[in-house]
């Protein structure tokens, strides 16, 4: 500190401002801002002129207009008379649905394959290796096409079906059908019971941890939680007099040929586009997750395993208490970016016309010509999803991170 002061005080005044890094920094930043403002101004004025020439009124008013097109799968109420805004919302919900289901499946498959790659069994580890290398070196779009145009074209036609699980689930070219639960009065109590069970589990887990920290006694938290979460709603289900029944899909195979097949809107139906997209997305992402899991487990040094064994822990507590918590630290950051990738890749739905955000937005764009607004909505939503996910994962990562001195 003193040296610096002496230096600045004792040195002769600088010969020129041009050699001063501070001045140079300010100069370059001013130039950068000027260039950005110039480019931005040009873009805005050009766009305004072009829009005026093409008679496109910019603004968000078009969101109120009637859409006039149907959407084959919607989680919210939607009909052809709904507005463009509602259509986009339905598309957004479909994106979320694909992302959540895809992430769920990809995580399970990815962890299984990642652990299989580390197996001592040569056949299993080779199989996992081939899976990973084959899947991640082939473009996702090609895989979506493969599932949609090749695999799902091989299932029975509209008037036939394959059935599984005691004739309750069916697959044909129109999609995957199964029984749909219909809730009646009093069913909300079951939901409340479920919430109570979850809260109780959290409280018990905290109490058990405190007890173990103070007395060393363990409490079977996992099995208690399973019992509570399954048991409490089940009890409530019987107490309220079973306020739910299953609506089975109805398959007509008599009468005029045109009427044969599954009846519309009876039971739940997953459309083939959804099946193809989810299958391709989760299998593709699972191959990346598998590599992340393998790298994470290998990152935990073997000394940890040996030390755990030396302490007298068996194989399963070693994995559960020593290896996995440390591996998770390595796994979570890249896992987050894979989840984000999956969400962003779900926009490839447009290639097989699954009505996700991009696909519905594309239709709206074609009908209204509001390119800037639609692309703006897309980017804003995907950016928000990305930022929210990474914020959540950063928070989680901080909790999991090593606490060092």
């Amino acid at each position, binding site marked *: 500190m003193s040296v610096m002061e002496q230096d600045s005080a004792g040195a002769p005044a600088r010969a020129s401002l041009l050699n001063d890094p501070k001045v140079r920094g300010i100069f*370059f930043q001013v130039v950068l801002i000027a260039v950005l403002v110039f480019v931005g101004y040009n873009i805005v004025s050009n766009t305004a002129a072009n829009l005026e020439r093409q008679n496109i009124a910019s603004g968000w008013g078009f969101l109120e207009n009637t859409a006039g097109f149907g959407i084959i799968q919607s989680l919210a109420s939607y009909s052809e008379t709904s507005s463009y805004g509602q259509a986009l919302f339905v598309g957004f919900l479909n994106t979320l649905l694909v992302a959540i289901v895809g992430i769920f499946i990809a995580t399970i498959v990815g962890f299984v394959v990642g652990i299989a790659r580390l197996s001592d069994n040569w056949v299993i580890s080779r199989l996992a290796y081939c899976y990973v290398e084959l899947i991640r*070196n082939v*473009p996702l779009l*090609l895989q979506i096409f493969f599932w949609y*145009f090749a695999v799902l074209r091989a299932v029975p036609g509209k008037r036939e079906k394959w059935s599984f699980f005691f004739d309750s689930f069916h697959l044909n070219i129109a999609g995957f059908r199964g029984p749909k639960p219909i809730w009646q009065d009093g069913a909300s109590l079951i939901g409340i019971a479920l919430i109570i069970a979850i809260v109780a589990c959290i409280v018990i887990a905290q109490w058990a941890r405190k007890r173990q920290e103070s007395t060393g006694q363990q409490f079977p938290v996992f099995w208690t939680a399973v019992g509570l979460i399954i048991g409490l709603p089940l009890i409530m289900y019987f107490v309220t007099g079973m306020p739910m029944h299953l609506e089975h899909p109805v398959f007509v195979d008599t009468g005029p040929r045109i009427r044969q097949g599954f009846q519309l809107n009876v039971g739940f139906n997953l459309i083939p586009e959804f099946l193809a997209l989810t299958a391709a997305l989760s299998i593709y992402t699972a191959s990346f997750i598998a590599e992340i899991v393998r790298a994470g487990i290998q990152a935990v040094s073997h000394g940890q395993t040996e030390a755990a064994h030396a302490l007298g822990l068996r194989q399963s507590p070693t994995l559960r208490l020593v290896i996995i918590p440390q591996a998770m630290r390595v796994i979570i950051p890249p896992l987050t970016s894979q989840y984000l990738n999956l969400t962003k890749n779900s926009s490839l739905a447009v290639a097989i016309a699954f009505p996700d955000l991009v696909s519905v937005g594309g239709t709206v*764009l074609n009908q209204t010509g509001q390119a*800037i607004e639609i692309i703006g909505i897309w980017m804003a939503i*995907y950016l928000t999803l990305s930022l929210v996910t990474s914020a959540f994962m950063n928070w989680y990562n901080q909790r999991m991170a090593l606490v060092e001195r």
Partner: protein
Amino acid sequence: MAKTETFQIRTEEAPLLPAPVSTTGLIGWMRQNLFSSISNTVLTVIGVIIAYWIIAPFVQFAFIDAIWTGEDRKACLPPEGSEGEHMGACWAYVKAYFPQFIYGRYPTDEIWRVNIVYVLFALLLVPLAMPSMPLKKLNSILFLGVFPIVAFVLLTGGNISISSYTWIFVALIAAVGVAIAAILSVAGGRDFNGVKPVLIGFVGTAVVLAIILGFVSANLGLSTVDTPVWGGLLVTLVIAVTGIVASLPLGIALALGRRSTMPIVRLVSVIFIEFWRGVPLITVLFMSSVMLPLFLPEGVTFDKLLRVLIGVTLFSAAYMAEVVRGGLQAIPKGQYEGAMALGLRFWPMMYLIILPQALKLVIPGIVNTFIGLFKDTTLVLIVGMFDLLGQIQSSFTDPTWSTPTQGHTGYLFAAMVFFVFCFGMSRYSIYMERRLHTGHKR
């Protein structure tokens, strides 16, 4: 007890016995790796069954039942009367369509130009990728600087009309450079040595631009081939290679910007990187094909391929920036301090000390980004361009080859091509990783 105790001491070594049969050779290996315990044996059996389930139908489809020769769809149709349960891949269809898959609808008489580009690309890339080859610097200049322009002229035919404004603009760059240098030499005083770099930078840029423009606009007697007739592997490679070559310098600049001490430069870099990384490529492609024309002044139109290239470049530049940033962060602080202690300014420090080390560290990451970009080029078919997958997809509408297995065959072919490229690149990245692992890295 007798007085004299007799000992039996062996004076020669016992003969070495061979290891038990069950622990060596194939049997030992199988006992150890496949049947070491009951659960392991069960796993082995399950694994073999799964492998058989997957491999047997695949071999049946791709080789045993496959049809290798034929003139049209009749060759690949199932024989009359059969239900078509034994249908194989229709390789005759791929054979017939092969030129289209490689060159798209590029005019047949001009295909030699594409072939020259392919050969040049391979000739320049292979020595660049082999660490033992000499003349790396010359090679990279040829590959990254000269090759793109030669390829551009060969593929499009050159002879691009360039408005006089462009030439004036180039001359202006040189003039501005001279003017700034003049002002600096007056204002800077005697101990200011920044005049020469400014002069070289501006005038050099202008000269290089002039040479490129001159070459591109020269009439070399090649007929013009418009980009809409390009297709197949050609488009895939053009997008992927341009994307990577253009995004690398941009990515380096962004990475340096993100680590800069100037707050506005850092902010702009962060916003740019996070924006492009946060949106899916498909929206970027829509943006470049729908929104970019709106941004341009009236009358200025862009080639569709060029618009896609801009989108892909900006998108991959953001990913490249994060890869390069990883490399920059891995360089110990002592390297920066050492460079500064030697009196190097920012750019010489980066150019001579930091970037050579950082980029070498992240070669695997760069290759991985390239693999991702290569796979993502398939997305351009959604905005109506014909890359390899798009070309295959569009060939399905041809009734000459319409058979039940046409789709499967086409997709299998596409998958094999992409797999060969991507797997090759990933093996190369692993090889480089091993090579660069110097042993004192933690």
